[in-house]
């Protein structure tokens, strides 16, 4: 079936009143789940699964997919307003989004996040529709050495995330890598750094560290300057609550970058949206004319990662729908759902159930529009939260953080860990250590170590496997280039100074 007739069939499915309603229900629930830190789309879908047994599978997957991509929209809200990452993929959004809010541009940041989500989400669906099958084949050619190179490339972003001191950034990253190594080693079943605590056997949940270091650390730091603390400026008037034309113009490349990077990384079963958002943020900064301003509240710094984590949804559906391979925890549950409804997810599903595939694709176009319409009017409302006096706002942030962490596992141990990481975040702020590299190390550490060990097991200990494969060689080459960037800059500075002295 060609794309045009498929789409026509798809829209006739997606625009049926019942499906339209389920699409809205999914998008709405997704937005709510995304806004609430902790509870993620994967858990929500799993809990709603029994309710869908009696539904028509097409309507059901339209709704569940709505939760999946809707959550990516909502995730940015608390990141921008409160520095509390709503879900793991929104951590990077905190970096510039929260700074924009502090400068009185909270509404603009939320608006840019929504627009980036819309653009990238739509690009993701278009790509899913047009190039799924060939791209799925390319994704399969990715093996452990390529994943290692990709993670190395991601880790090299530390150079770009570093603030004033590269040494401090590297130290923060090493702490992140160390936290990533806590837990049971997959290859040998040996536990590492658990200190006899069974709670640590599965490792430290990324959400706890991110909320602790970002949100709790931030509040603790601000409390210290209580005398100076003021209510954040929230300008009145719709014009001030939405992004300006200049801000949108500045994001042109970021929309594209986020869409493409997010989709491509989403297609790979071994990567994920958090990695996608970090890489697209790094790329945005690397090509920016004013990289020094990143981290102080630039709109591109919000648009790129938000775009990436939405486009990733379309990408993650590629291996799931074309090959029956789940690329993330959420797609794994969607796959389980398809089986429970009596469908057979796998390489033949699109052929066997064209109405389901095209209905889903069409519903994602509809859903993205719905989400934009749903989110834009909420912006002025959400921005008001910053008007709260600090004595209400800070306890509120603490409350949201604790509930968010507790809802992930229902374990008090995790709440204590949140407190510990909050203190760590506070100390890092006091000593001027950037927190983003720590999160970067934590996100990439586990997969990077695994990819390296898998590669070496495949090659029987031969390190050459990492550079003998073209794709991984190119990525490792890029990694070295990025790592050398600061040296070039320094050399350039010396050259300029020498010229000035001579002249």
């Amino acid at each position, binding site marked *: 079936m060609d794309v045009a007739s498929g789409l026509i069939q798809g829209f006739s499915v997606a625009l049926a009143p019942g499906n339209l309603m389920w699409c809205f229900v999914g998008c709405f629930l997704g937005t709510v789940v995304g806004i609430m830190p902790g509870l993620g789309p994967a858990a929500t879908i*799993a809990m709603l699964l029994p309710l869908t047994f009696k539904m028509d599978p097409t309507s059901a997957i339209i709704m569940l997919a709505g939760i999946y991509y809707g959550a990516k929209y909502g995730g940015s809200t608390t990141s921008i307003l409160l520095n509390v990452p709503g879900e793991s993929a929104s951590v990077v959004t905190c970096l510039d989004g929260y700074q924009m809010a502090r400068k009185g541009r909270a509404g603009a940041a939320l608006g840019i996040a929504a627009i980036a989500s819309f653009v990238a989400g739509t690009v993701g669906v278009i790509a899913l529709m047009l190039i799924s099958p060939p791209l799925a084949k390319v994704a399969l050619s990715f093996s452990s050495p390529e994943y290692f190179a990709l993670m190395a490339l991601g880790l090299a972003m530390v150079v770009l995330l570093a603030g004033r001191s590269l040494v401090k950034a590297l130290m923060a990253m090493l702490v992140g890598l160390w936290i990533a190594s806590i837990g049971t080693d997959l290859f040998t079943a*040996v536990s590492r750094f658990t200190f*006899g605590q069974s709670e640590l056997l*599965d490792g430290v949940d990324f959400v706890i560290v991110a909320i602790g270091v970002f949100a709790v650390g931030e509040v603790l730091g601000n409390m210290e300057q209580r005398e100076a603390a003021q209510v954040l400026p929230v300008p009145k008037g719709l014009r001030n609550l939405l992004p300006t034309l200049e801000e949108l113009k500045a994001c042109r490349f970021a929309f594209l970058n986020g869409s493409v990077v997010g989709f491509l990384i989403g297609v790979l079963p071994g990567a994920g949206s958090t990695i996608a958002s970090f890489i697209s943020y790094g790329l945005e900064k690397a090509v920016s004319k004013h990289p020094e301003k990143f981290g102080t509240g630039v709109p591109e710094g919000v648009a790129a990662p938000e775009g990436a984590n939405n486009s990733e949804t379309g990408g993650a559906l590629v291996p799931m729908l074309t090959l029956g391979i789940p690329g993330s925890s959420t797609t794994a549950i969607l796959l*389980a759902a398809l089986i429970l409804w009596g469908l057979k997810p*796998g390489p033949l599903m699109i052929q066997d159930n064209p109405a389901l595939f095209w209905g889903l694709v069409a519903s994602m176009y509809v859903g993205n529009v719905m989400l934009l319409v749903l989110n834009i009017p909420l912006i002025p409302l959400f921005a008001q939260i910053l008007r709260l006096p600090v004595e209400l706002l800070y306890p509120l942030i603490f409350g949201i953080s604790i509930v968010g962490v507790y809802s992930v596992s229902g374990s008090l141990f995790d709440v204590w860990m949140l407190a510990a990481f909050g203190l760590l975040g506070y100390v890092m702020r006091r000593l001027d250590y950037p927190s983003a590299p720590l999160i970067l190390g934590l996100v990439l550490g586990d997969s990077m170590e695994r990819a390296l060990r898998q590669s070496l*097991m495949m090659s*029987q200990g031969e390190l050459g496997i990492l550079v003998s494969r073209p794709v991984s060689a190119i990525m490792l080459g890029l990694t070295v280039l990025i790592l050398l960037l600061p040296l070039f800059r320094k050399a350039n500075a010396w050259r300029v100074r020498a010229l000035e002295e001579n002249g």
Partner: protein
Amino acid sequence: MTKRTLTSALLSTALLFAAAPAPAEFKPTKPIEVIVHTGPGGGGDVLARFIAQAVEKEKLAPVRMQVNNKPGGGGLTAMNYVVEKKGDAHAIAIFTGVWVTNPLTQAEAKVTVKDMTPVVRLVLEPAVIVVKADAPYKTLRDFIDAAKKTPGQLKQSGGSITSRDNVIRQLMMKNTGANWAFISFPGGGERIAALLGGHVNMMVIEPQEAGEHIRAKNMRVLAQVADKRLPAFADVPTMKEAGVDIPNVPQVRGVVAPPGIPQDAVAYYEDLFLRLSKTATWRKYLEDQQFEDGYLRSAELSQFFDQYANRMRDILKEAGAKIVR
């Protein structure tokens, strides 16, 4: 009514009481908590939610079942929680094989499945051995021969070294003298991607998962790890038929309860799950998932735990894992 009929009526009532097993006195009076060791969406969680729904639909119990996720600690968080609920007859837990195997290698484990009350074993999940469709191995023998020719060169993708995939590999290597590498991937998707991408040569996979890849001619199945052939794989030899006679190591799931619950509560749950296992809903679930009915009562399950732990201890030792108990 004559005296005689009255006597016989009394007698038959008495006989009825004597003949039937003592009816379970325990009746749940509040919702039953079903503890699972994964987050929502994990294997145990999906089963638990299906059971809760089926029990409600078939009206098998007077109360509802409520799933409680206790993820973390490789299952230990849930296991500790079950033991802490000592004496609570309104709590049950879904166990899987890892409840038996993980404490063998984890010094952090303070409890094992033997500290709980065994209730029933419910399902056995068979497995099939697959290669990529264009691989040169047509039979299991071909693969073994190739592995013997190039020791350590062929690769299998799978989960942790304590997983069933690796246990089957260890048993096969021991039985045949061949030797190949085992490469761990955390997610099922990555394992399949590694095989379909041609980065590894073989994998052990759930039949339901492999079904569509086989139908699409992406994978070829060499043998099935089951005692008798599965209906969906009627023309595929079992391991024994393929010439590799290793003990069957099924993935197992069932129900345990906190320690110290009354005997009649155990009897109640044994009966509840027996009735569940006879419903059409349950039959269809097993068929869709290609699971085998593995129903065992409490006493048999207790023995099964011992055998399983002993066998796994030996296998893991050979696999090079550090055994702590």
